[in-house]
């Protein structure tokens, strides 16, 4: 069965990626930033799988699986960070975490 060509999936992935990027850059809550990051990762996954289908090799899907696993790990650590921040009373605001200011 044929459906939309690979190109369409890629466009969806691109728009999803841009959306996620906007979320990362524009939101102040670290939680929302993490969620937006997840969107970006998923967009990347979609692109990988689309290409894998296009060239007929499974390497893209393997890569996407690995990305999924790493994303899971990253979310775990990120959430741990947020919980630690909340426990210490640090405000959950990305703009206030500016200890790296030179």
């Amino acid at each position, binding site marked *: 069965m044929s459906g939309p060509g690979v190109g369409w999936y890629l466009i969806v992935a691109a728009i999803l990626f841009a959306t996620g990027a906007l979320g990362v*850059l524009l939101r102040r809550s670290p939680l929302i930033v993490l969620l937006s990051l997840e969107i970006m990762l998923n967009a990347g996954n979609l692109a990988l799988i689309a290409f894998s289908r296009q060239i007929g090799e499974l390497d893209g899907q393997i890569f996407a699986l690995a990305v999924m696993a790493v994303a899971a790990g990253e979310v775990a650590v990120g959430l741990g960070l947020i919980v630690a921040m909340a426990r210490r009373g640090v405000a959950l605001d990305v*703009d206030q975490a*500016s*200890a*790296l*200011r*030179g």
Partner: protein
Amino acid sequence: MITGAWICLFAPLIGAAFITFMGQDITRRQAGWVSTLTTFAAFGGALVAFIGLWAESPDNREQTSTAYTWLAAGDFDVGFQILVDPLSTVMMLIVSGVGGLIVWYSMGYMAGDDEERRYFAYMSLFVFSMLMLVEAGNFLLLLVGWGLVGLASYLLIGFWHQKPEAVAAAKKAFVMNAIGDATFAVALVLLVWETGTLEFFGVFDQAGSMSSTMINLVALGLLGGAVAKSAQIPLHTWLPDAMEGPTPVSALIHAATMVTAGVYLLVRASPIFELAVDVQHLAAILGAITLLAAGVIALVQWDIKRVIAYSTMSQIGYMFLAAGIGAYGYAIFHLMTHAFFKALLFMSAGVVIHHLDGEQDIRRMGGLKDVLPRTHIAFLVGSLSLAGIPIFAGFWSKDGIIASAFAVDDALGAVLYAAGLVGALLTGLYTFRLYFTVFHGEQSELVAEHTRHEGHGEGPRSMLVPVGILTVLSTIGGLVVIPGVWEPFLTWIDETAEPLVHATVAEDYGTSAIAVSLALVGFFIARAAFRRGRQLVTRPALWRVLEHKLYFDEFYDALFYRPAAALADTLRQRVEEPVVERSLDEIGSGTIQVGGEVARVQTGLLRTYALTIAFAVAVLIVVFVAVR
């Protein structure tokens, strides 16, 4: 014989090194003895060399000896080479003999000075340097000795370094000598370029094949060095100031030996000068000008040492005159007799100064004849010798020079002859003015004061014995040349440098008659002026000019010093301060500023960092697509 020459050269150096390294472990007196004895050892070595050379047949009287090859570059090499020939042995004897007497004298003169050891180390260094100069077998070693005597002179003039005048005088001497050293070095460079060697005999053999311009340039360079070292006009202003040094230093360096190095050079390099006749005549003319100028300046000086210094300048003018017309034997003969009587004069003046606790102004002296009888005799002998009264040493040598000028047949000879005779008159005038003012007349207050306090003799034995020896030498030292009877000294020097002119016996004695009469006229005028309490020069304008030493110092100051100082000041204000100093500050503050600006990138906000990454990605996409 050659060994003797080597011992002569190195004994003083060993003395100097010993005193330096032993430092405070030897007493001051012991340092004095080390210096004196090594200098006399050098004299012994010189004597051995001299006698050995005398025993050789006349054809074999040019012996060189090379210790090792010092410098080798391609075809050019220079060795540490000494030359034993008639001229160098005579110079060795004079330097080590008179030097030894003066160093012995210093033991008494400098006794009690805190830094006596340093003094004797420097004196030995000087004797070594001067011996190296006269024993050198090639021009490079001569230049080394030349430079080292300049150094020793600087160290010794500025010996009393707490006195700012002494330090300034030392610097002046060194800088003026440096001008001479520079021209000398240029001459050597030209010699190497043209002939490829610096050995005396190598150069002299090839000198004939050099172009006329080259030979003149080389001769001019050598003459420049000689003029500076021997304090002839125009590079003479350092010599009177050099009297700031201790009196024995003035005696040794600025009378007997160092200042005569220029004459030695003119005689040693005579083959070169004979090919550059104009330069040789220039030397004679400069000598004549100096002898007259120094003579008139000496008529008005008040400092006892400065009068003697100008007298030295004048007598060296005679030697330059002789070397300039080719009377080499007489030039060296006068060098020897001058060493005797000038050292004698300085040393007797030193006894006077020592007795008066450092007073050098003759206006405060007088009547010392009865107080210091032996010194009086010594000074009188020295004065008679200087003025050229027979039978004293100066008579034989000075008149020989003037007669040789007569033997030069052209206009130059006539002018030089006249100058020599006028010089004889001037010499008589200033010498006896000095003698009468210091020793005759009533005792001045100062003298009376010192005579009351001192009760003992005129001075320590170490001071009086050398003075006595020099008195004897100044009396009989000239008897090695009696024209028409025997002239062994002249024949001896002739082997090295064949004279260009030879006066007949009649010319010689005729000239002597005129010169001696002129000197006696000077004596009587001086005595008459003294008896009447008048000065020899009374016109105020003339007095002022002469007192300011013909305004040479002021002229050089305006010509060289002022522009240089003004330029330095301008550079400092315009260039160094704003550009160099402030730029250092600006580099520092500028870096801090830039650092501050750059640090603003570190906002600490995660979002800006993420934004930067996003932009980078956007750019990279374009780059990747374009590259593909």
